[in-house]
């Protein structure tokens, strides 16, 4: 089912398992299946917005290199690495068809600011709280003495 990643393949956010929102240039994402959440700000916030429009690595590279005035080889390396991370975290997929034509109004801030290597910041510290499939915590606590539903019958 998974398409191979090529620089000209369109990308798309996984809509079923991932909720995301961009505010003030920062994308916040949560993988609803794992409870792990992510932030992508600055350059990576732009990359995320473009991915939700279906952009390919080629298109991302062109836009980022031009906007931040960095060599295309550097931008391509950084974007490939970021895209592979997003794929590995199950946040995006490789689309079946080619990407849509590049949008002329890419979601860039008006002044480019300094180029920083785009990062995916990953947080699993609240996974229990958010997780739809939560792991049991490693807790050195009292043993679960007849902890199951006994006693509840009488309460009901």
């Amino acid at each position, binding site marked *: 089912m998974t398409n191979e990643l090529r620089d000209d393949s369109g990308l798309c956010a996984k809509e079923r398992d991932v909720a995301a929102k961009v505010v003030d240039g920062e994308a916040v994402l949560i993988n609803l299946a794992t409870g792990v959440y992510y932030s992508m700000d600055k350059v990576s916030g732009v990359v995320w917005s473009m991915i939700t429009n279906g952009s390919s690595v080629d298109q991302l590279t062109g836009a980022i290199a031009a906007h931040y005035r960095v060599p295309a080889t550097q931008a391509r390396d950084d974007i490939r690495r970021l895209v592979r991370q997003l794929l590995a975290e199950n946040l995006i997929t490789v689309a079946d068809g080619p990407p849509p034509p590049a949008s002329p109004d890419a979601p860039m801030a008006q002044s480019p600011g300094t180029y920083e290597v785009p990062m995916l910041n990953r947080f699993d510290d*609240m996974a229990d709280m958010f997780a739809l499939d939560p792991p049991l915590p490693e*807790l050195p606590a009292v043993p679960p003495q007849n902890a199951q539903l006994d006693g509840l019958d009488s309460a009901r």
Partner: protein
Amino acid sequence: MIISCVIPVYNGERFLGEALDSVFAQTLPPAEVIVVDDGSTDNTAVVAARYADRITYVRQENAGPAAARNRGVRSARGDFIAFLDADDFWHPEKLARQAARFAARPELEISITHQSTFWEPELDDRRRAMQGHALTKEVLPGYVLQTMLARRRALAKVGEFNPELRFGEDTDWFIRAQDAGVPLELLPDVLVTRRFHKNNLTWQREADGLHNNLLDMIQHSLKRRRRNASDTNTVQPESQDDERTTR
């Protein structure tokens, strides 16, 4: 240890009695039980009146569960606060086992437990449709207020429940507690049963609204942590190791 139990209720006539029975069946009963009627239009007041000699009944204009909880906490006199919702119920040893944890770990501020889910038969179709969703699992970590027993000072430190949130106020509160570094322990014991029925607030949630709320909470939390990190010159907001060891 003086425990106050706060039960917010909105149109909860159907199950409030069972919830209260599970409180009064505790092997370590709370010193007081405060039922905050959030403007119910059904017979909630009639059910509550059956327990009049054992509860404090407060009625307010409908303002949502967060506001009702805040109201209850403000009028509570205990140094420990527990919450229960009117459609859920406790295991008889719930408070006793949590109290034992506070005795064993004096630095502990918040105790939560695992929860099981109980579906009323009227929701059989829905349950089948949700196959694979976490809520159809029988046992889950209880990051919900119904499982919580907390020191009152922990509530003061974290702050009130956000009354603007009509749902998810508990998640928001637990995130803030974690950001504030308040020591929390999740017991493996399954001590609360949550009931899903046709009138649950849960079913009135729009998934989009819920996710939107969740993303807002996460973003606020990230901002808070960055602010704290720059205040204390901590290296990275994501290095939450210190907090994790307290859990």
